[in-house]
């Protein structure tokens, strides 16, 4: 080979390397760059975002880029940001608890005012939010993102603080937060070491992550199997409804799997009381008939409703299927309030047919931000949400089903080759490794 080549005689291989080298930062930077956006709309409007969960912060990040001059205020006392879709992984020993704990301050956009107080009430006629500390905060536009209220109080004898303590052996619940999820895993380990009688519950209200009770059941069975105590154990799933999942084809699939796995299911049985010391749960049928069940392990899923601030305000549905829970009265397409057009809803608080998951926020946050900007600009909210939501339903450690569906309960896989009802490594990998990064991108308002 010629050792005295001039630069122009550089071989094609070398040139290709240089091209790749030059392109790499561009490709990497593309994902880090803000969403390709139109020119920001100039406005001096006051926007209040009530709640700083995924929905609230995702919309705040988007609005901060889409608007020039708007005064955006986030109201929420909570300083910790929790990756809630990871709770079931913590509660079943797949993830350490640190993976679901973060700081809200790290994700709020610059220039946004953060009022560290809880929302105590809404006065939409006066365009004002009232905080627990007594502040009255006026707005021109409001985004309600306050999430759900876990209504454990409806279960007599339930003590959330006792989860994971000696006071309540075998008492678990994945919903309250990271500590409860961690305590649930400790209780699951103790239970699977010996085996026994496990009771899994499901309330009749709309649920945040309706797949979580099913995942917990699948994983408990898997843990018993791996511990070698499945033979001396019994898992019984008590549903307050006539099904275990709202999408029929998924419901049927899960029931078929559970039949094969030996998980018993009983319907129309609502958990009304629990004796955490004596380890007895009381269920009630629609006819008012009570039945007590002893347990060695119980997973309590609380009834859920809108937080009082919404439930007791004019923003709540006043009639129809969402009135009892006090959910936010939004149009299910535009997510704009049906009576107060300067109010939008995002996330779990919305009184819509389905969708209380992070995946719902992933698809609806861009739409809410867009529709709100349209309304600020004096136009009509023109984008409609189809109710997309997703549930990576873990069937055992290492395998899951990736179920995506819309308001109508139609399966809507993002990639056409995905078989939603096949449990697979791919769906597991999504849940285990990829959905948290996707969540972070949503939180930052990029996807």
């Amino acid at each position, binding site marked *: 080979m010629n050792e005295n080549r001039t630069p122009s005689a550089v071989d094609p291989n070398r040139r290709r390397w240089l091209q790749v080298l030059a392109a790499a930062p561009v490709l*990497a930077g593309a994902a880090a760059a803000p969403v390709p956006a139109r020119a920001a709309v100039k406005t001096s409007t006051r926007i209040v975002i009530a709640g700083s969960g995924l929905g609230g912060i995702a919309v705040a990040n988007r609005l901060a880029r889409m608007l020039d001059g708007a005064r955006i205020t986030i109201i929420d006392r909570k300083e910790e940001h929790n990756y809630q879709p990871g709770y079931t992984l913590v509660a079943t020993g797949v993830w350490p608890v640190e993976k679901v704990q973060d700081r809200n301050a790290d994700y709020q956009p610059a220039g946004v005012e953060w009022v560290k107080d809880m929302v105590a009430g809404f006065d939409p006629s006066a365009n004002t939010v009232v905080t627990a500390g007594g502040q009255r905060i006026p707005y021109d536009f409001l985004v309600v993102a306050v999430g759900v209220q876990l209504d454990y109080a409806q279960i007599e004898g339930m003590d959330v603080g006792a989860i994971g303590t000696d006071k309540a052996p075998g008492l678990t619940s994945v919903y309250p937060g990271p500590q409860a999820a961690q305590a649930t895993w400790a209780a699951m380990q103790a239970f699977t070491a010996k085996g026994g009688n496990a009771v899994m519950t499901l309330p009749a209200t709309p649920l945040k992550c309706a797949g979580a009770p099913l995942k917990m059941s699948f994983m408990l069975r898997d843990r018993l199997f791996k511990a070698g105590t499945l033979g001396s154990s019994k898992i019984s799933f008590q549903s307050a409804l006539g099904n275990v999942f709202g999408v029929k084809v998924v419901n049927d699939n899960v029931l078929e799997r559970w039949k094969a796995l030996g998980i018993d299911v009983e319907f129309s049985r609502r958990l009304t009381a629990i004796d955490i010391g004596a380890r007895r749960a009381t269920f009630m049928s629609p006819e008012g008939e009570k039945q007590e069940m002893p347990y060695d392990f119980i997973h309590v899923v609380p009834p859920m409703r809108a937080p009082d601030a919404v439930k007791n305000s004019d923003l709540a549905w006043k009639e129809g299927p969402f009135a009892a829970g006090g959910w936010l009265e939004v149009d299910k397409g535009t997510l704009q309030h049906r009576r107060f057009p300067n109010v939008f809803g995002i996330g779990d608080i919305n009184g819509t047919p389905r969708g209380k998951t992070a995946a719902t926020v992933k698809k609806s946050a861009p739409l809410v931000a867009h529709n709100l900007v349209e309304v600020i600009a004096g136009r009509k909210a023109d984008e409609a949400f189809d109710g997309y939501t997703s549930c990576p339903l873990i069937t055992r450690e290492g395998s899951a089903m990736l179920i995506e569906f819309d308001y109508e309960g139609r399966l809507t896989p993002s990639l056409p080759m995905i078989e939603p009802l096949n449990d697979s490594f791919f769906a597991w990998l999504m849940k285990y490794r990829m959905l948290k990064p996707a969540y972070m*991108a949503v939180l930052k308002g990029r996807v």
Partner: protein
Amino acid sequence: MYEIWLAMNIVWEIALGFWPLLALGAAAWLVLLVLAWRQPAAHWRRAWPVAAGVAAAAALIGFLIVPTTTRSSLQELAYWVDWANLASIALGIGVAALAFAWPASVLWRRSIINR
């Protein structure tokens, strides 16, 4: 298009979690590349078979161990989407290995010639 954008963001967010390691790796790769380029007689073509062999071995190892490192197993590969997905990850590992192995192989061949 949305799915591509989402996938790019997922990769970016995963990379953010390892950025010191990635930065170190990128620096090491650049050093390796510069050293190989500066060789008076860089036999890139002749170095290819060894580099390709290393890359293929890395891809194969990746294929075999990635399920275990994600608390799953090869037994959980249920249908072609699983196989294609795992093959893509293994391919990525192979390409990364190739990026290091090729210039390293050039240097290695040169050092043998110089002996």
